[in-house]
């Protein structure tokens, strides 16, 4: 009875075989240290770029998020509203469920402040009435401080009969957020492009490997190896390239963060902020390694699919 008919379908042997192939392809890579290291480094650098940008953006969002929550709404009242009426309105608004506090600048105090700060004191004295309106600076409650929710409050305040201009001091934060969204997209595009580059790097490396092992593939086919059997070591090799490339990318970004965190803490200190650069969290690292291994596997799959079928024994 032949071996093939007695082929042991035991999962234990299957597992044993996979571990063996995974380790032997790893061993083969270790034998070619320099070439392996260079390929992994190229993959690592390609992956480090989008990863680094992703981390930077995450930090930027953290900063702009903090600014966002400091948003206040300026309500300029109509000229005709007297200071007494403005004070009454301020008192009323303080009871509002979405409002944390209201700061009132009366017409009189606005004029006083303007006279002190602008240097147009004489010119203002020439006017027979106070041209400045009363101002309410509204601080929304914590739940209503993001760009979207604060906007709801703005709309409500605009409906007040005494309100003239209602301004959310958030325009620039929103612009920053819009830019961040664009940058996020750019990172996604960059990641896709560089991911493709990784795919091609691994594919090309595996293609060369297949060429080098042409005779071996031919002999193994003669002996009755299935395509899956021949494919397996190359797929594992691609997987290892991806994984090690990912690890290198992780190290590069971690080093960059360490190098930057000192100066950034310094800068934050000058702004009297306690901001510190956040590093890679575990889930990001896990996703990175998963994605890079998958890219390596896919790259070698492409090469193997194209080149293995071309080798037939003669």
């Amino acid at each position, binding site marked *: 009875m032949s071996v093939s008919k007695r082929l042991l379908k035991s999962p234990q*042997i299957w597992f044993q075989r996979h571990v063996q192939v995974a380790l032997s392809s790893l061993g083969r890579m270790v034998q070619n240290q320099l070439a392996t290291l260079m390929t992994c480094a190229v993959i690592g650098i390609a992956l480090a770029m989008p990863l680094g940008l992703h981390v930077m953006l995450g930090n930027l969002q953290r900063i702009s998020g903090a600014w966002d929550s400091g948003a206040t709404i300026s309500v300029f009242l109509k000229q005709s509203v007297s200071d007494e009426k403005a004070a009454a309105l301020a008192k009323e608004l303080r009871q509002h469920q979405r409002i944390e506090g209201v700061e009132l600048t009366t017409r009189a105090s606005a004029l006083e402040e303007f006279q002190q700060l602008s240097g147009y004191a004489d010119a203002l004295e020439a006017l027979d009435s106070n041209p400045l309106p009363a101002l309410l600076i509204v601080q929304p409650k914590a739940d209503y401080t993001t760009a979207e929710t604060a906007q709801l409050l703005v709309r409500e305040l605009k409906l007040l009969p005494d309100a003239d201009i209602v301004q959310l001091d958030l325009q620039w934060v929103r612009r920053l957020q819009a830019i961040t969204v664009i940058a996020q997209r750019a990172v996604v595009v960059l990641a896709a492009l560089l991911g493709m580059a990784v795919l091609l790097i691994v594919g090309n490396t595996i293609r060369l490997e297949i060429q080098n092992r042409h005779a071996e593939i031919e002999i193994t086919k003669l002996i009755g190896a299935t395509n899956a059997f021949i494919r397996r070591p190359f797929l594992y090799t691609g997987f290892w390239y991806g994984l090690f490339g990912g690890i290198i990318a992780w190290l590069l970004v971690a080093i960059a963060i360490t190098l930057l965190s000192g100066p950034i803490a310094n800068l934050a200190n000058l702004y009297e902020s306690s901001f510190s650069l956040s590093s890679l969290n575990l889930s990001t690292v896990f996703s990175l390694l998963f994605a890079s291994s998958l890219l390596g596997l896919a790259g070698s799959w492409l090469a193997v699919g194209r080149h293995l079928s071309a080798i037939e024994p003669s």
Partner: protein
Amino acid sequence: MIHFDNVSKRYPGGHTGLSNVTLRIEAEEMVFLTGHSGAGKSTLLKLIGLLERPSTGQLHVNERNLSRLKNRQIPYHRRDVGMIFQDHRLLHDRTVFDNVALPLVVAGVGHKEIGRRVRAALDKVGLLHKERSGPITLSGGEQQRVGIARAVVSKPPLVLADEPTGNLDPALSEEIMQLFMQFNQVGVTLLIASHDIDLINRMQKRILTLNKGQLVADTKTEPADVGE
């Protein structure tokens, strides 16, 4: 075991490898295949191992109709056909042991079983003491014996050999042939292509003679009838 029914093989470009060959080889037979180079010996062996497919005709090996075999089934067919080559076709970056183990690894045999069977095969060809050597350190005759061990390690019912003694001196060739006789005695069907007429005649086995792709003689145990 092997049944050619009007099999022809034409190559692109018009060259004819085999034309209208009909022959039958029964299980447990030992048959020699001879003829000038280019007569179609290698083509015939390649068709049996499905390295090539026949252009026309029906070919059954091991009760399989090879014309109906799909490409993805070819590996399983080859596991039942041990093949031996003139140039040995060993993997030079692996030890003798690993070379002989390859068919078993390919077939998914367990680790312990592999060790046992490889040593048995190496013992059979008298190279057990060389299992840790690299093939390049061996002589031509030893390398061929490694190739033979590899062909029989998985105990295939059929073994094909293409000029197995082509590069060997008469004494070594004789040794290899004795090895084949031993395999045949335990029930292996052997088909051996060789142009060494003297050697073949001494073996006193059935001889198929090819000329220009045609089967011109099929002699059983009558060595004197082999003519050119």
